[in-house]
């Protein structure tokens, strides 16, 4: 279980080590993002980030942007008499809160399915394992897995932008990733894969952060760290506002 869980991470580290080892002579792949910190301010309505880089020659590019992982519970409604209520549920372990795949061409044109699955390239290849003891019949799990993908896609948190990576002169590549207003906060990882002849020729990992900044962030931190004082302050504010309203309208 543990080995399977860490497998993709180990594979990524191995690839990264491979990349850095060769980079001393001639890096086959370099990549970066236009901002290392996406700030969610009070006026935040979403943000477009440029991902770019260079390769040492022709090849195909697949770029994955992953948000911080969390356990996710999916509930299913069932008819109970005249009304619909939540009944069965499945909890999936370490689900990426955000997932974007961008590539230079449709995936199956340059990569074999086993590699796509191993590196979790494409929303269909995201590893979704249920937490043990959820009491759900194994044959029901795929339905919940599809529902998770469908719901996340509907919330614009999962998406596939196949063919959106532009490659110039077989060397420079770039693409734009849109982060919607409901983007989860935390540490994000951009994985860039260079495919050549149906194998991964090089890979690169670029981390960056999405966090709340400014007044909104202070309010959020305050509410979570000092809930009691926040509550009292919210009440004081409301009492003050009510008193002010009454005083203001008495005069008129």
């Amino acid at each position, binding site marked *: 279980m543990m080995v399977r869980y860490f497998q993709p991470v180990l594979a990524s580290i191995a690839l990264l080590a491979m990349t850095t080892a060769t980079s001393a002579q001639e890096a086959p792949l370099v990549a970066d993002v236009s901002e290392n910190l996406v700030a969610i301010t009070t006026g935040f309505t979403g943000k477009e980030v440029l991902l770019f880089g260079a390769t040492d020659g022709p090849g195909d590019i697949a770029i994955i942007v992953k948000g911080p992982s969390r356990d996710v519970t999916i509930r299913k409604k069932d008819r109970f008499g005249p009304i619909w209520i939540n009944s069965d549920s499945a909890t999936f372990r370490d689900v990426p809160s955000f997932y974007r795949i961008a590539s230079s061409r449709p995936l199956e044109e340059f990569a074999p399915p086993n590699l796509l699955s191993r590196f979790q390239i494409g929303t269909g290849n995201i590893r979704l394992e249920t937490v043990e003891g959820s009491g759900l019949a194994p044959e029901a799990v795929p339905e919940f897995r599809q529902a998770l993908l469908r719901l996340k896609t509907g919330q614009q948190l999962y998406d596939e932008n196949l063919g959106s990576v532009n490659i110039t002169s077989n060397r420079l590549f770039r693409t734009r990733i849109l982060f919607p207003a409901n983007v989860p906060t935390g540490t994000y990882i951009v994985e860039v894969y260079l495919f050549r002849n149906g194998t991964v020729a090089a890979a690169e990992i670029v981390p960056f952060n999405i966090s709340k900044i400014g007044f909104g962030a202070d309010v959020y931190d305050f509410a979570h760290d000092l809930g009691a004082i926040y509550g009292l302050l919210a009440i004081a504010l409301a009492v003050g*506002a009510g008193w002010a309203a009454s005083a203001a309208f008495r005069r008129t």
Partner: protein
Amino acid sequence: MQIYLPIAEMSVNVFVILAMGGGVGFLSGLFGVGGGFLMTPLLIFMGVPPAVAVGTEANQIVASSVSGVLAHMRRGNVDLKMGVVLTVGGFAGSGLGVWLFSILRGLGQVELVISLSYVLFLGVIGGLMLWESLPGVMRKRTGAGPATPQARGAGRHTWIHGLPFKMRFHKSKLYISAILPLAVGFLVGILAAIMGVGGGFIMVPAMIYLLGMPTQVVIGTSLFQIIFVTANTTFLQATINQTVDAILAILLLVGGVIGAQIGARFAVKLKGEQLRSLLALIVLGVAIRLAFDLVITPGELFSVAAEVK
């Protein structure tokens, strides 16, 4: 103009929120109700997580009740002693309600319980109000005598008057057991915490028919105790569930205060029974809409559960 709500974790249009606050404020000024029963479902329809809608609405009701109670206090229409007894019951009730709320959230049934409570209470109260506002019923009731509430409450001697811990409430002209207002406060407190309402629409009829209070002190006293119960709900939701969005609450109450004043001015131009039947129709409309959502086959059977920390 978009603004990012830090606790609801979503971006909303400032003017939409101000208009919602203004619209519900207008109705609350027009009918003399809190408006929580309209605002909480509206926020949920908009995509605000139910837990945040309930916690934030409690915070907003604190402001509108303070504003309302000050006006009633100037006219001497608040029974403070009764208000305090109701509040003691309300504190215990809202504490239990917030605790129930977090358990239901863990079970994934909080939306269902919120919807069911709305359908049940709004349906019953809207139905009764509509029935009472029918012309035939009105004539019959006025024929029976104008002092109907007193006749049904304080005048009658039932098992209620045999309860111990009797207290004298001068302003309400009552000598009744403290258990009665405590129980009323407790039950309304539970509902207030779960439904994100002040509970005035249940409290007011309970005070008139169950406790037998004179009508002129009912609204002021109900508002008085709603301040404390919703303040308690705000505090508990903020500490236990972290679901009070102060930014959203401020936007709502700015719109609400202005709307309420305009509504109060319009109320003068409409007749009492017209107001009552109009309010009854709105209350029933919300109940039917929510009932419909529970019964029809949903387009999407699956949902992502809210994170439980």
